């Protein structure tokens, strides 16, 4: 799963005067495509931008377990259930790799969790849509994880070493997510009329939110230029979105399903698909927390954190007693 950096950044260009020399070394390293590691000097704004982006990415993985967990007990077969369970475990693992990467920047996982629960941190808008039918499990794997892969592959070369290494692991695992989703859609699309309708309905509902996953258009994405210069981000939002449309349309055609966009057509001169206008008002509303199930998602996270607090406390108390006994 994936999220783009959604918060305004006003502190990007502030570099203290005495850091000019170290900043020059840093900029040269990044421009030369070298990795920055945790103990290396880095500008505060780079650190803050990374913490924001990596933690949003981690939160997305964790919140992303909720829409799929919704169908775990109602999977249509044991095979599908085992697959879905494995995928959800992967999302959890991805969240943990990313929290670890962010922690190397000097923030604790608990601080990040608190920021999410207090509404100070964002996660991908895609998870604020409900999963209404079983076909949504297929559509999420195919489209949402498909979009995530396109976003994440270039991040394997992102300039911050721990983030890049986490992305290598995540990308290796993500491909299974997309393929199982497509296979699940294929079964439905080739099934009964009712199953085919269910698959089409899922595509209809997930198509536009998936396109929004790539973030605002390039001309409305003011921080992109700095993030690209720092090699935190490697491709523009619109370029990745176009790539997603171009690879996904033939996959939908192979399923015999219709992309819900009347303006979608092949453009011979651009050698790419033209697609219709995205409803950015909806996107910004979901970013503001007005998504259909935004409150439910956050409430579920807070509940999981709070109702399991006694387990963490008990584990720590047990260890305190154990080490005391050992010392005695």
């Amino acid at each position, binding site marked *: 799963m994936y999220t783009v950096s959604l918060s305004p950044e006003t502190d990007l260009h502030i570099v203290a005067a005495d850091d000019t020399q170290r900043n020059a070394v840093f900029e040269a390293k990044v421009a030369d495509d070298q990795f920055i590691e945790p103990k290396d000097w880095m500008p505060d704004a780079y650190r803050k931008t990374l913490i924001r982006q990596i933690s949003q990415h981690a939160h997305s993985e964790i919140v992303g377990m909720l829409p799929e967990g919704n169908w775990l007990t109602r999977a249509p077969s044991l095979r599908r259930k085992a697959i879905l369970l494995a995928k959800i*475990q992967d999302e959890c693992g991805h969240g943990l790799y990313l929290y*670890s990467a962010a922690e190397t920047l000097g923030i*604790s996982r608990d601080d990040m969790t608190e920021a999410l629960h207090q509404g100070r941190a964002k996660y991908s808008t895609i998870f604020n849509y409900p999963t209404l039918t079983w076909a949504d499990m297929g559509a999420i794997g195919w489209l949402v994880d498909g979009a995530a892969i396109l976003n994440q592959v270039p991040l394997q070369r992102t300039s911050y070493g721990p983030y890049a290494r986490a992305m290598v692991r995540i990308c290796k695992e993500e491909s299974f997510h997309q393929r199982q989703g497509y296979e699940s859609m294929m079964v439905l699309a080739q099934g009964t009329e009712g199953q085919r309708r269910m698959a089409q309905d899922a595509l209809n509902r997930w198509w536009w939110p998936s396109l929004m996953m790539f973030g605002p258009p390039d001309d409305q994405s003011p921080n992109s230029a700095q993030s690209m210069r720092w090699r935190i981000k490697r491709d523009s939002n619109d370029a990745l979105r176009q790539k997603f449309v171009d690879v996904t349309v033939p996959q939908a055609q192979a399923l015999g399903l219709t992309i819900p966009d009347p303006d979608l057509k092949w453009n011979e001169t651009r050698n790419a698909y033209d697609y219709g206008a995205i409803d950015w008002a909806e996107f910004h509303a979901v970013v503001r927390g007005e998504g259909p199930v935004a409150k439910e998602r956050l409430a579920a996270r807070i509940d999981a954190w709070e109702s399991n607090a006694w387990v963490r406390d008990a584990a720590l108390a047990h*260890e305190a007693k154990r080490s005391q006994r050992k010392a005695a």
Partner: protein
Amino acid sequence: MTNALPLWEVFVRAKNGLAHKHVGSVHAADPRMALEAARDVYTRRMEGVSLWVLPSASIIASDPGESPSLFDPAEDKIYRHPTFYIVPDNIKHI
């Protein structure tokens, strides 16, 4: 949020014959919980046959600021490499 679970570094041996390699970290209250978390987080796809975990706080790392004094002296000691020495082509097995 005062009671944070401590951080542990995780090392995995991919197969016998290879060294344990650092793969990431986990939070856990005690060594056993750390091992179990490491198993769940880092070996879901047969990535390893053995795990090490150790408290992150116990790692002592070199300071990047001292890198020049630590590592640069090796740069002008190329006579430590076999290619520094010229041996005629007709001399074999050396």
